[in-house]
């Protein structure tokens, strides 16, 4: 399943980049980075469906509550 997901992203990325009229390196780099991040995100969720959502503000709130006590 993981291979299928990664392959899907590779195909989408490849086809879309092929269809671009111009390929400025900055845009290509950002595009590839974002697509890789999305693929990693998908793979992580496939491995662990209960992947926790990071809560930086919640962590900050808990830390402040501990300090208060």
């Amino acid at each position, binding site marked *: 399943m993981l291979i299928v997901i990664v392959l899907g992203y590779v195909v989408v990325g490849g086809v879309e980049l092929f269809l*671009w009229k111009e390929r400025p390196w900055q*845009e290509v780099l*950002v*595009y590839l980075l*974002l*697509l890789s991040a*999305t693929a990693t995100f998908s793979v992580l*969720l496939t491995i662990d*469906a209960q992947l926790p959502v990071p809560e930086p503000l919640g962590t900050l709130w808990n830390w402040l509550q501990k300090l208060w006590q």
Partner: protein
Amino acid sequence: MINESVPERQGAALVFLFIIGNSFVFGLARWAGRDLWLSFLVAIVLALPLILVYGRLDTLMHGQSFSEGLHRLFGKWPSRLVALIYSFYAWRLGCLVTGNITNFVQAVSLPDTPQVVMASAYAILVLWAVKEGIEVLARFSSVMVIFVLLILLTALALATTEVDLQEFFPILYDGFWPVFQGAFQLLDFPFLETVLLVGLANALTTKKNSAYKVLIPGFLLAAFFLMLVASASVAILGEEMYKITFFPVFLAIARIDIALFLTRLEVVVGVTFAIGGFLKISVCLLVASKNLAHALGFPDYRFLVTPLVLSIIPGSQWFAKSVMEMNLGATKIAAFTDVMVQIVLPMIFWGVAEIRMSRVRKNKAGKPSGI
């Protein structure tokens, strides 16, 4: 920079569908129970000044995109940070709406279909819509708003056979606090989510003051319809049933039975939900892409659309992992992040923009028509 322009009527339709979007199937203002109509009135009164602030921001940014306006307000790097925050907020909202739709469809009609299948189908549609831009979305809204209004009005008219107005009495039996809780929930979701439309300021303001003509009618009409639908659901199902059901409107419409001939009308609710949800996800992803492009320093947003849209497929499974979690998230009273993005930051923008405008007027050095 891409010049986009949306006529006022289409803009108002877009605002209407954006607010109705995924919200009306949930038990909105369930905290208030039988007094939810009061919660709606309180929420409308509380939201209206903020919607006016959003309109004022759009007016102040007339002729400029949101990113240009931000840049002139705060300078290069702070404006990029603000754009990044709004981009993340819009992406998160897009994921949540997609999650709502996939959970809804799985709960009511396709229990064995994996949610990722529906999310992928939506993502393909949204990808196309976002790449086409706001003009196509606004034209889509102006056509679809007629269908949605017809569906809702017909459903409401047919539902009158099942309505029991005694369900609204006694009024304020539990006091004002639940009414305010319901009102705050409505402010958080869905009324003040219209803050995202400030990000489309350039396209929605064809004339100097047209932002008000777009935001106010769209907001008031949507709020009015949501109030009617939610109140009708309480009158049909009763207070307790409205509170404990995940999708009370769906259940209420399912009860319509005209002479054993016209039944199973709940499917029209699903259609409306699908149309509104699609539009809302598209607007969210459009705003997310535009703001991310500004945050990264690119003039065009279209090359960012594909990765962002594809990321809502896993994102929709991430933020809400079950129907119960989704429902709790949708009908929570308020969240810190939402308050910051919907109220605090726009108020800061407005204050800074007005100060800068007054300075410009005093100096008479620049045009007084923009920031």
